[in-house]
């Protein structure tokens, strides 16, 4: 008992002596304010980046009409899988994890079950990201920075997916002019999955099929509802 009391006295004395001798100094209020501000800034920047990337992925998805691919059967699903911007998705995932780590600094986050905060933050970033993609934000940015780091190749035919405006109808199919201004002959075969209406000129189509020497052998064709990014 005596030993414990002595230990406690020693503790108080040691701590107070260290303070008196200026071996320990108090951090200023400004230090904590700056630290909190930096943390909040980091959190906001990460949140903005996550939302921006999600809206950018949505822009690529819509701009390349990737949502139409599942209508073209298993091949469509495969092409959808291949055409997804995997690198961007991986970056979004990493940034989102960073966002979660940064958010644990705030008591309103760590005091709630992880599932709640995770679902709420996924809901928030997806809703805001998709909403931004509905505006002309990315379209304008694309027009301005077509050759820039982010937007270069964002709206470009990939793999077996071709998007273009029908310029001419012929016996065995039709011709399309894609977003780069190149013209392709679309060859329709008896197995081609056709749209439920007659194809006419000026409509924008998404064509799935391998291209060889300017001829696309169509596996499936679907109209692109919104006319965008086609010359």
């Amino acid at each position: 008992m005596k030993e414990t009391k002595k230990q406690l006295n020693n503790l108080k004395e040691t701590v107070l002596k260290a303070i008196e001798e200026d071996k320990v100094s108090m951090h200023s209020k400004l230090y904590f304010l700056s630290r909190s501000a930096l943390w909040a800034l980091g959190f906001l920047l990460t949140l903005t980046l996550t939302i921006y990337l999600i809206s950018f992925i949505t822009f690529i998805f819509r701009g390349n009409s990737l949502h139409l691919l599942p209508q073209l059967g298993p091949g469509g699903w495969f092409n959808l899988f291949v055409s997804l911007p995997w690198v961007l998705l991986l970056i979004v995932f990493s940034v989102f994890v960073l966002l979660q780590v940064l958010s644990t600094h705030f008591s309103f986050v760590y005091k709630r079950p992880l599932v709640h905060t995770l679902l709420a933050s996924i809901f928030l970033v997806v809703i805001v990201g998709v909403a931004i993609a509905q505006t002309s934000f990315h379209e304008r940015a694309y027009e301005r920075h077509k050759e820039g780091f982010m937007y270069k190749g964002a709206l470009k035919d990939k793999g077996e997916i071709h998007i273009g405006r029908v310029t001419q109808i012929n016996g065995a199919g039709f011709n399309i002019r894609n977003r780069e201004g190149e013209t392709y002959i679309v060859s329709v075969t008896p197995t081609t999955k056709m749209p439920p209406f007659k194809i006419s000129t000026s409509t924008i189509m998404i064509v799935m099929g391998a291209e060889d020497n300017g001829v696309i052998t169509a596996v499936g064709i679907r109209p692109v509802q919104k006319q965008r990014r086609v010359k």
Partner: protein
Amino acid sequence: MEDEHFAKLLQQGDKNAFGTLVERYEKKITRYANKFLYNYQDREDAVQDVFIKAYKNIQSFNTKEKFSPWIYRIAHNTFLNVIRKQKTEKITLFDTDKLFAKQLSDESETRLREQSEDREVLEQCISQLDVKYREVLVLFYFEEKDYEEISDIVGIPKSTVGVRLRRGRERMKQIYEI
């Protein structure tokens, strides 16, 4: 006078106020260290470190809030660092206990506290419990903190405190019966 009053005086530059706070908390923090760092040699240094950190960081304390959870949180983090440094016990960053919510009733907390035999069992098998159970059990039974305070100190949801207390009690009874 309340702790928060002395914390405010210290923030305003009154170093003697810190002496009062050390007096008020040295026994509690030492007891907490003795239970939580049961198997560790550096307990005294760790307790000293807690008060040094409290002094250094006092300007970050919001005097409108309670001082006790604040200093216990410093203690908790300091003690976890001791465990991390020695690498004798595993501390997981992610735990499934934190995932889901379960509404807790005040009744269950009161009922749990009334089971005084738990304290005696815990006393005997404390060193064999995982850190994540030990931290909540020690705070609940020996430091007599409620769920809300433990949630503040450990930095986990209140529902997770309940889950860990329940699982920790089951674990300690298993150890006790062996």
